[in-house]
C-alpha cells in the first residue's frame, strides 16, 4: 500500500530550492550553527585530545570548563556526560539589555549587534539544556521571542522602503536565520526591479540610437 510522504524540509529535490531561491534550508543552517563553540563542564575524564576537522578539543577533566562545538556539547548533555554553560549573551541580564536596545531603536530600524547564529544557538540550548539557566529559562524564552519579533518588524519595514530608485536596504547586524528567511523574497523582488530598470535603459538606448540615425 503506497504511503506518500512529503518532507517539508527543503531537501535537494524540493520545489522550494528549484524555483524560488532558497539556497539553504533552515535545518542546514542549524547544522552550520552547531559548529560554534560553547563552554561545557564535563563530568567525565578523558586525558587525550580529540582531533577533529574543526580543531582539537580536550583533554577533559571533571568540573573543569572547556570549550567544545555546540553539536558535541549537545551530545554530551544527552548522555549526561556534561552540562552546558550558556554563552554570556544568552544569560538573562544580557538578553534583557539586548531587548531594551532593540526596543529603543524600534523606530529607526537599526538592528542591534547579535551573534550571527544567535537564533539557532539559543533554540538549541533552550531545547536541550534548559536547566542550565537555573530556573530563569522561561524569562529568557520570552525575551528572546520579543527580540526576534522586534527585529522581524524592523526588517519588514526596511523591505517596504525598497523601490526602483533606491534598490538597497540596510541589513547591518542581521542574523543568519533572518537572512535565510528573507533571501528568496528579497532576491526575487530585486530581480524584478532590476529587470524593469534594464528595460527602461534598453528603451532609452534604443531611442538614442534612432535619434543618432536621423
Amino acid at each position, binding site marked *: 500500500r503506497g504511503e506518500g510522504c512529503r518532507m*517539508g524540509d527543503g531537501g535537494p529535490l524540493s520545489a522550494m530550492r528549484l524555483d524560488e531561491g532558497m539556497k539553504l534550508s533552515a535545518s542546514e543552517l542549524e547544522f552550520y550553527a552547531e559548529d560554534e563553540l560553547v563552554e561545557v563542564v564535563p563530568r567525565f575524564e578523558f586525558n587525550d585530545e580529540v582531533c577533529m576537522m574543526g580543531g582539537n578539543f580536550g583533554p577533559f577533566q571533571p568540573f573543569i570548563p572547556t570549550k567544545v562545538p555546540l553539536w558535541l556539547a549537545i551530545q554530551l548533555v544527552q548522555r549526561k556526560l556534561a552540562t552546558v554553560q550558556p554563552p554570556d549573551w544568552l544569560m538573562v541580564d544580557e538578553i534583557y539589555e539586548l531587548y531594551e536596545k532593540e526596543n529603543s531603536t524600534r523606530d529607526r530600524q537599526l538592528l542591534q549587534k547579535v551573534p550571527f547564529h544567535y537564533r539557532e544557538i539559543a533554540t538549541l540550548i533552550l531545547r536541550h539544556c534548559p536547566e542550565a539557566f537555573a530556573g530563569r529559562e522561561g524569562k529568557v524564552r520570552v525575551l528572546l521571542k520579543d527580540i526576534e519579533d522586534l527585529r522581524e518588524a524592523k526588517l*519588514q519595514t526596511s*523591505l517596504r522602503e525598497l523601490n526602483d530608485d533606491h534598490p538597497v536596504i540596510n541589513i547591518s547586524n542581521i542574523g543568519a536565520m533572518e537572512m535565510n528567511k528573507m533571501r528568496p*523574497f528579497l*532576491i526575487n523582488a530585486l530581480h524584478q526591479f532590476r529587470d524593469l530598470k534594464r528595460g527602461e535603459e534598453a*528603451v532609452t538606448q*534604443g531611442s538614442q540610437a534612432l535619434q543618432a540615425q536621423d
Partner: protein
Amino acid sequence: MPVGDYYSLDSILREETPVPVEFQVRLTKGLANILDAPAGEVKELPLWLARALDSKDYVYARVPRTHSKPTLAALKVDASKHSLSKLNPYYYEAGIDLSIMTNDAELVQALMISFARRYKDILERYDHTEDKNAGTFIKTLTSEERRLYVSGQRSSVHHSKWKRRMLEHIEHAPITQMSNKKLKTS
C-alpha cells in the same frame, strides 16, 4: 530582455502576447499565404512575429489595449486594484518587450511605478496564512508577482516549521489521505 530564453516556458508564453500591427507593405511571398493583408490594414500578430516583421519595417507595431495609455493611466491612479493577470499574465515582461519594440519609454516607467505600488501589497500579504482572500488576491497577480509572493510565503512557512521542529516530520501527502476516506465509506 529583447529576446526570450529559447527553452523557457514563460518566455514562450509571454511572446504569444497579441500585438496589433499595421501592414506597411503587402507580403507577396513566404508567409503571404497566411498573412495576406493589404498595406494599411491592422491585424493582431503574436509578439515574436510582430517584432521580427517590425524590425524589417514590413509592419508598424503598436501597443495593444492592455498596455495602452488609458489603461496605464488607470493603473497610475491605483495599481493595486487591478487584476493585471487578466490583462496579461506576463504583464511586466511583455510590457518591457513592447516598450522596446515601440520605443515607448513612458510605458516602462508606468510599469515601474505600478510594480513599486503592487510590491507593497504583496509584502503586506504574503505572511498572513489565515487570509481568506489570499486565493483571489493571488489570481490578480502576474506570473512574476506570483513567484515573488510564493517565494516569500514558502520561506516564511518553512522557517516557522523549523521553529516548531516540524521540519523533520514526515507527513502523509494529502492525496493518500483522501483515498483512505473513500475506502472507509464503501
